């Protein structure tokens, strides 16, 4: 066992109101710079939709992530031979138009325009070229299903749905959507790290944050292609790639990342997970149907004595283990099992988990065309969810609809149980049946309810104290090289010497 600690996150999608405050907080702190205008390390997408950059989930276009290759995995768009071939011309890279051309407005024209018959206007100008442009797209151009014939209908996750199912989604009465906020997943098996020809990207030893060394980056942009979530961006001004740094300077001083701190819906949770690094290869190469289970299995119980001992032996601080025990992420992902990774089929083992949205059908159109908002019970069961299970399964479980259903049943049980407590118009049988169907109990649903609705700042963000003074020891044993300064090998080369 090779136990490491990983800062992980949970986004509760039922709570997201799509206000983009997270995106703005992030933009103001990190990407409000020349060359970074088009980057949104944090962005909020409307689903169904094509997202940002357009159709980022379609790896037939962008060739991101890993693909299963016998007993192992190999990068879809990079790797030794392919990487060498494409090193001077990376053929699957998104272009600026796939993100959007950033722009601002000539506000000064409003004040300086000469007197005329018409109101002065502030024309849009490109932030890249400074020229007047016709705005064709923005980072959330498909917000709230805007332009759905072009965006929502081209959602990559519709691939398993029949034409009729897709059509029914776009009937006015059934039309539905939810928000999907995205940041870098700080994966356990990051494709960006594996693809970098310069070795500039690394996963921090103490908390697993994936960072790009701006000194070593040589602008090959293999990471831009390799990241299946398209969360590595190329800065055209500095000639280096950049990505979400999970606000590590804030984390190291005990503050939540800017996007999480500012979240209006309080949908974001952050905490430590302990995992077994020796199993990464095995988990990443698991069959598609077992991917989610395999990934969740890699995270270890921080209360287990063996795990604690092994963690300590691996140099993980007591304070970090304590943080792992209090971690809200551990509760959502492992204890309750209601948070799922986004697109596990990319095989990068993302550390950002989503509680899927319920989107219950609150009304229906009957045979006579009458719009009826009265249903027998408030939630007619997850089978009448407005989004097909297959759609959610495509997003969160690599196609396993049963797992999505189970999560939604549990979420439904929380709501039913709380209604019984607060309103009291439901019978015990009804509540118990729901609890049983979700294989849960009153104690658990109460805990879920508390962490979902009443959690304090300290409960939502359990940030371990930064032990930067020890972080070097986790990467190398300085005792071994003491006295060998200057020359020599820490690991003898295989060819001998």
């Amino acid at each position, binding site marked *: 066992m090779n136990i490491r600690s990983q800062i992980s996150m949970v986004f509760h999608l039922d709570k997201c109101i799509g206000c983009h405050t997270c995106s703005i907080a992030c933009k103001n702190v990190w990407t409000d710079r020349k060359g970074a205008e088009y980057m949104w390390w944090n962005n909020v997408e409307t689903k169904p939709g094509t997202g940002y950059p*357009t159709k980022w989930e379609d790896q037939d276009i962008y060739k991101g992530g890993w693909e299963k290759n016998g007993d192992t995995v190999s990068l879809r768009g990079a790797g030794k031979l392919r990487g060498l071939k494409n090193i001077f011309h990376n*053929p699957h890279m998104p*272009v600026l138009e796939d993100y959007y051309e950033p722009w601002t407005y000539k506000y000064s024209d409003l004040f300086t325009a000469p007197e005329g018959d018409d109101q002065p206007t502030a024309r849009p100008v490109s932030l890249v070229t400074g020229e007047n442009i016709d705005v*064709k*797209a923005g980072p959330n151009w498909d917000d709230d299903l805007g*332009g759905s*014939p072009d965006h929502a209908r081209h959602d990559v996750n519709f691939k398993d749905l029949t034409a009729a199912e897709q059509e029914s989604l776009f009937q006015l009465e059934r039309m539905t959507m939810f928000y999907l906020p995205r940041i870098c997943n700080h994966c356990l098996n990051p494709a960006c790290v594996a693809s970098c020809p310069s070795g500039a990207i690394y996963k921090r030893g103490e908390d697993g944050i994936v960072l790009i060394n701006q000194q070593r980056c040589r602008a090959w942009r293999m990471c831009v292609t390799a990241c299946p979530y398209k969360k590595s961006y190329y800065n055209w001004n500095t000639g280096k790639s950049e990505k979400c740094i999970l606000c590590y300077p804030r984390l190291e001083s005990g503050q939540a990342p800017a996007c999480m701190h500012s979240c209006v819906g309080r949908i974001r949770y952050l905490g430590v997970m302990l995992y077994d690094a020796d199993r990464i290869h095995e988990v990443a190469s698991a069959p598609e149907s077992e991917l989610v289970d395999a990934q969740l299995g890699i995270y270890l119980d921080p209360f287990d004595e063996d795990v604690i001992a092994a963690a300590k032996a691996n140099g993980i601080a007591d304070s970090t283990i304590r943080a792992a025990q209090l971690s809200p992420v551990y509760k959502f992902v492992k204890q309750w099992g209601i948070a799922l990774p986004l697109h596990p089929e990319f095989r990068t083992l993302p550390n950002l988990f989503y509680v899927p949205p319920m989107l219950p059908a609150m009304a229906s159109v009957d045979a006579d065309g009458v719009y009826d908002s009265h249903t027998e019970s408030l939630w007619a069961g997850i089978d009448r969810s407005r989004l097909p299970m297959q759609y959610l399964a495509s997003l969160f479980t690599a196609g396993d609809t049963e797992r999505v259903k189970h999560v939604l049943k549990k979420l439904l049980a929380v709501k039913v149980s709380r209604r019984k407590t607060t309103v009291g118009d439901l019978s015990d049988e009804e509540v118990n049946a729901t609890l049983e169907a979700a294989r849960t109990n009153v104690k658990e649903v109460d805990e879920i309810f508390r962490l979902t609705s009443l959690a304090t700042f300290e409960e939502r963000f359990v940030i371990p104290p930064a032990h930067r003074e020890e972080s070097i020891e986790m990467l190398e044993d300085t005792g071994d090289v003491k006295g060998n300064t200057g020359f020599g090998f820490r690991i003898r080369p295989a060819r001998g010497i």
Partner: protein
Amino acid sequence: MYIMKQYKSNHTIATPRNTFHNAMSHPAILSTRLTVAPVTHGLMNGLKALGLAGVLGLAATPARAQDGAAIFKQNCTACHKLGARMVGPDLTGVTERQSGEWLRKYIRGSQAMIKSGDKDAVAIYEEYNKTLMPDFPFADAEMDALLEFLAGTAKPAAAAATEAPAEEEKPIVFTAADVERGRFMFQHRLSGGGASCITCHNVDAPGVVPGGLLAKDLTNVYGRMGQAGVAGILGAPPFPAMAAAYGGGMALTDDEVHALTAFLQSANNGTTPATPRGQKAMLGWGLGGMAAILLLVAILWHNRLRRSVRHDIDARQLRTI
């Protein structure tokens, strides 16, 4: 500063350079070489000048004409001789054939005169295989001295004539070894540090790769200029570019001049090669190689993203406006 350095570093420079500061100020003159043997530093200027004049048989001419003789020796002898045609015409008594004004103009800017269509200038140009003469922007005093010297050559022509054949009689023998050494020197950096000849010149000869096209093709230069002309130009290049390239201590040694002349003699075959060998083949290989690379690119990246993923979306939205 540069001039002073020249002084110190180049002990082979003989008297006239020390006595004529005006001449020193012109780069072409600055970097030309005297073909006289190196003279020890301490030797008195007067003695040196005397010796020089003695060689040319001009001991009786006034001091000013001696200066003229030095200028002539330094700048003109690469192509001109007194009493015989060489690369350029025999200059004996030239002052009688042309006016002083014309000569001054011609020496300072012969090429401009040919371009402007001066009858005599064009005639000389045609007569001497269209060989251009470099411009020599002498100062007035130097020009006066030079013309005075040339004017003096007309009368004692007999004396000069008796002296000259004695000089020419020296038999110059080129051995096969000289040719081989010359072939090597032509293609390599010279001992003084000057660039190899092949950098700018092409010679169509066996064992020589196609050379540069920056300057004249030298395959038949020996036939055009003869031994004296070639050796003279190599020893003291009158052309500004060559003078700059082989000035400042980078002059060719006598041995190099000898070997290169031998090589150029061997290369002289009377034909006029249109283009250096291999040029057409090079063009063919270049075009073929480019086509091959483009084909490879088309195959290797046949599945590249050719346009934005948003292209269709944008196109449809623009249509519906």
